[in-house]
């Protein structure tokens, strides 16, 4: 039974209003929120791309570098968002030599960039740079989410350059029944979208993500914020996440067109029908060791969408790492810090 009375509600609302007033003042004073905490050096640049090397945290890091290929949507500092929530720091502490591609912010000059440019040119050039720099025939690659799909394409086209491949919360089958992103874009006229905008606005992608859970993400979250308004540390953590969520680069139009149509709408990756710059992507070319990391409660990339890779690759050394958590929790949760980087590092260092 509802034990609430109008008086009780009024009292609660008065308390909430007082905290809101205090909260707005606190938020006004808090200043710039920084994200991305680990020291790094820019070692290679091409157009808007910057390749970073994270400064090692052990005396003798592993000789084979690891290149992190992040998604084109959102910003890669999610992997290093704060000192106690940093997958990159965890990998460094375990002795991995970590590099990361920052794609930057595409503008109108980039609207003609294709997936061919991203894969044959940008990723390929970064990997050649690392092979040369580290004097290695091949390097390790960790692809994240959409960056995982790009990494699968690259590794299939250039298997000789990839020593070990790690895919993390990576969609492979885009038509599993529970794939809500595909569901949302299935009937959208992608040509009309790209032809209208040129580059696809990041704000539109933000809308799509928020639309998956609007009552929580656009409502309850801000009501709950008043619970931590006195806790400066927790408040800054919240704001860091807000910054990341809203920091959505526009998507280069032609690359978006192909990704949306070929991957989401037509599911060509698992059919072996994706063509990148006139070369066909065949996942059976993935003969290198593969570690496929997925999150059991991932609402954006459901586990079956990732796990299908098991039956499609050509590797003799395929394994999976299941993380009990969601698409974001796999980077930022306390459990992820304990479980994921050490497991990836152990897998890598054993090969």
């Amino acid at each position, binding site marked *: *039974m*509802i*034990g*609430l009375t*109008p008086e*009780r*509600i009024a009292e*609660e*609302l008065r308390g*909430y*209003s007082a905290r*809101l007033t205090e909260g*707005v003042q606190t*938020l006004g004073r808090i200043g*710039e929120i*920084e994200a991305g905490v*680990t*020291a*790094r*050096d*820019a070692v290679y640049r091409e157009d808007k791309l910057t390749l970073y090397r994270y400064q090692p945290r052990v005396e003798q890091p592993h000789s084979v570098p690891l290149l992190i290929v992040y998604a084109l949507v959102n910003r890669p500092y999610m992997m290093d968002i704060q000192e106690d929530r940093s997958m990159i720091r965890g990998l460094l502490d375990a002795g991995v030599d970590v590099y990361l591609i*920052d794609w*930057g*912010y595409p503008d*109108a000059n980039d609207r003609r960039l294709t997936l061919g440019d991203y894969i044959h040119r940008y990723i390929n050039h970064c990997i050649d740079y690392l092979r040369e720099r580290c004097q290695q025939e091949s390097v390790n690659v960790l692809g994240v989410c959409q960056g995982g799909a790009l990494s699968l394409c690259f590794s299939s086209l250039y298997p000789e350059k990839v020593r070990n491949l790690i895919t993390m919360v990576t969609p492979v089958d885009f038509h599993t029944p*529970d794939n*809500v992103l595909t*569901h*949302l*874009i*299935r*009937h*959208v*006229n992608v040509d*009309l*979208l790209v*032809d*209208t*905008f*040129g*580059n696809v606005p990041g*704000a539109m992608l933000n*809308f799509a993500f928020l*639309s*998956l859970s*609007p*009552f*929580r993400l*656009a*409502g*309850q979250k*801000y*009501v709950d*914020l008043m619970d931590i308004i006195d806790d400066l540390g927790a408040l800054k953590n919240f*704001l860091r996440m*807000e*910054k990341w969520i*809203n*920091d959505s*680069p526009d998507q280069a139009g032609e690359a978006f067109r192909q990704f949306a149509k070929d991957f989401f709408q037509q599911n060509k990756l698992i059919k072996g029908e994706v063509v990148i710059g006139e070369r066909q992507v065949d996942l059976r070319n993935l003969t290198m060791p593969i570690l496929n990391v997925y999150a059991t409660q991932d609402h954006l990339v459901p586990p079956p969408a990732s796990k299908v890779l098991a039956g499609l690759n050509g590797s003799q050394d395929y394994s999976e790492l299941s993380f009990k958590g969601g698409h974001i929790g796999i980077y930022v949760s306390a459990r992820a810090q304990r479980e994921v980087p050490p497991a990836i590092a152990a897998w890598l260092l054993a090969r």
Partner: protein
Amino acid sequence: MTDQTETPSAAPNPFDTELLIKQARSYLAFGEQMSAFSSQLHDSLQGGGDWGAVLRQNFDQFKAATIGAAGDASAAPEHGQLWTQMLDLWRQSTSSLGLGAPAGGETEAWQGYLQVQNQYLDLLRQSASSALDLLEQQLHDRAASGKSIDSLRELYNLWVDCNEKTYGQMLRGLDYSELNGRLFNSLLQCYPKGETRS
């Protein structure tokens, strides 16, 4: 060359305080609605009514008031926003992208888009109505098992859960996928293919 943090010029402000205030207003409106509902409920129970019947009667009134708020120009906008969260998001997003009514009058394409938007609103209305049915059922279930709701916040969280559940079911339906596509496409058809926005 060491670059410890990236603060690119395109990065947005960390937090939109106006958004917080807007959501806070919605929460306060929820509190007002629940206060009125609670008052009616207690009055009816003091008159000796049966809990289930009283809840049903008052809930029907509450439901009509909540759902009706969006179509009622005299209602406080926060009341309607309680269940049109999604439509609100859509309008904010399209507005931020400059996708308003085309200059030079309301074109046929724009009218077509508004029709689709109304269909979208209808679907959201059905989802919100189902959420309130679910909330009523949950209150019944709690009462039957002797569990009480003792704070507005607890009730709000339950209301959010119910909305997310019915909205999620709607989102995963074939109708929604098709309508979402038509919503985007009909809006985009209002503008020239100029590739001039970015």
